[in-house]
């Protein structure tokens, strides 16, 4: 009896492995991807990058231009994340199953969040460029909408997970909705909210770079210009600055997270 159970499990694991290899082979064949050729190309690629994609001493003359652009992009992501967080939190409080207003709100809010979350930020940028042209505001709006959808979903789950019991208790004392929000829901969910918002700021700095290439603003646009004019040393410096900024942001948010627990 027992033996058959373990045999079945081994067969299942083996089956999944074979299936994965098969799927990989089919899809690689479909797009003309040759793993061996890629492996052979990697050393050449690295050598090329090491020769061309290196920040040169001359590149550092442009550091102030780069830093200003980078600052703009970082601020853009911080602003879009924070404003999106405020709206997302309002929606999440209203739409929460455990704590919210009930009625049709949970379904409506979840629907809205789902729509915004499932359209990629890049798609938002393309859509919004029709109305707002290539500008910083287009980038802001694209990041805002994607972040809003994602954070609403995260906040909904955080609130439902953490605030249900205390909300029930305060409801039983005869407290109204607004005092319940400030006295129970906000204190119980604030750590999760800060943590998710910080995470979105990190993500948005990366995304803002990409969006900037499309909307012609910020550090992304600068990278695009240098890259297309074959100034690989400058482009490399831009990337280096972005990496440093993202790591710094991550370190700061980790520190903040530890402090608020």
């Amino acid at each position, binding site marked *: 009896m027992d033996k058959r159970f373990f045999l079945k499990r081994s067969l299942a694991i083996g089956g999944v492995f074979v299936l994965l290899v098969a799927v990989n082979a089919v899809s690689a064949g479909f797009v003309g991807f040759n793993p061996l050729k890629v492996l052979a190309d990697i050393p050449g690629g690295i050598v090329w990058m090491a020769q061309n994609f290196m920040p040169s001493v001359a590149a550092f003359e442009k550091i102030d231009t780069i830093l200003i652009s980078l600052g703009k992009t970082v601020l853009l992501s911080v602003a879009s994340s924070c404003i999106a967080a405020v709206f997302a939190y309002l929606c999440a409080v209203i739409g929460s199953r455990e704590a919210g207003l009930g009625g049709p709100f949970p379904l409506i809010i979840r629907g809205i969040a789902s729509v915004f979350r499932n359209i990629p930020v890049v798609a938002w940028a393309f859509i919004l460029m029709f109305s707002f042209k290539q500008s910083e505001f287009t980038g802001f709006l694209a990041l805002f909408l994607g972040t809003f959808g994602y954070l609403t979903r995260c906040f909904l789950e955080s609130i439902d997970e953490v605030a249900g*019991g*205390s909300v*029930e*208790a*305060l*409801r*039983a*004392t*005869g*407290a*109204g909705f*607004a*005092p*319940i*929000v*400030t*006295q*129970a829901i906000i*204190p*119980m969910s*604030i*750590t999760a909210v800060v943590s998710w918002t910080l995470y979105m700021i990190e993500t948005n700095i990366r995304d803002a770079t990409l969006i900037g290439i499309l909307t012609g603003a910020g550090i992304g646009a600068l990278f695009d210009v240098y890259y297309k004019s074959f100034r690989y040393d400058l482009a490399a410096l831009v990337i280096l600055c972005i990496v440093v900024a993202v790591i710094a942001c991550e370190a700061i948010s980790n520190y903040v997270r530890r402090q608020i627990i």
Partner: protein
Amino acid sequence: MEARNLLQIEKLGKDYSSKSKALTDVTLSLPRGQFVSVIGSSGAGKSTLLRCINRLIDPNAGSIVFDGKDVAGMGRRELRQVRRRISMIFQHYNLVYRSTSIENVLQGRLGYKSTIAGVLGLYSEEEKERAFTILDQLGLAEFAYTRTDQLSGGQKQRVGIARALLQDPLLILADEPIASLDPKASQMIMEHLRWAVDTLGITCLVNLHQVDYAIEFSDRILALKKGHLVFDGTPDELDARAISDIYGTPYVEERAVRGGLFENLEEEVLATVGAA
């Protein structure tokens, strides 16, 4: 003026879905200043009964009259006023764990506050003094400024009781208040509830898993079985036969159980001998 019952429930019914009925035709009345336990196996409808009384759950049928007011047919504003005089205590304490004990206790006053004062958490000096007094009476004076997630289970539940008492309740509903506590803390919590009944004249309606605690502390015991009220009497009237009926376990006297064990043992010994 006639001595009205504090709570009068008639033919209360609740079904969550069309198939299963959580409560059927429950009729009971509670006077002031009585300690009443509700026992019954899990799923019998104990929590549903308690939550219908303060309308955290809306019943489907029947009437609930609390302190002369019809709770079942009430609008939201009136309901909030009635809830002020009905406190609730929970198995999992349901505190705001990121706030201190004193803040949690003061939240018992939220039903009495204007929206602005409630939103900002503004309490009067008198309310604060009373909150400290109650914490002191429950032996928690030194933990007033401690965040409640740092308290033990028994201490958390005492904060829950303090919050309930600051409401000036006529009725306390306690849903399995000791189910997550060790025997010593359980004993203490039950004693505090008994104290509230004896010295403050509050009525306590307490769901309990443990029949022995119900017998030790109650003036009166109710039993629910599959949503029906099947027992309503004093602890003395709750004998072994009634208990076995409530929980649907076969009724066996203690001595009979022992005899049965020995018989089985004998049989086993004989079987082994036979096999050899």
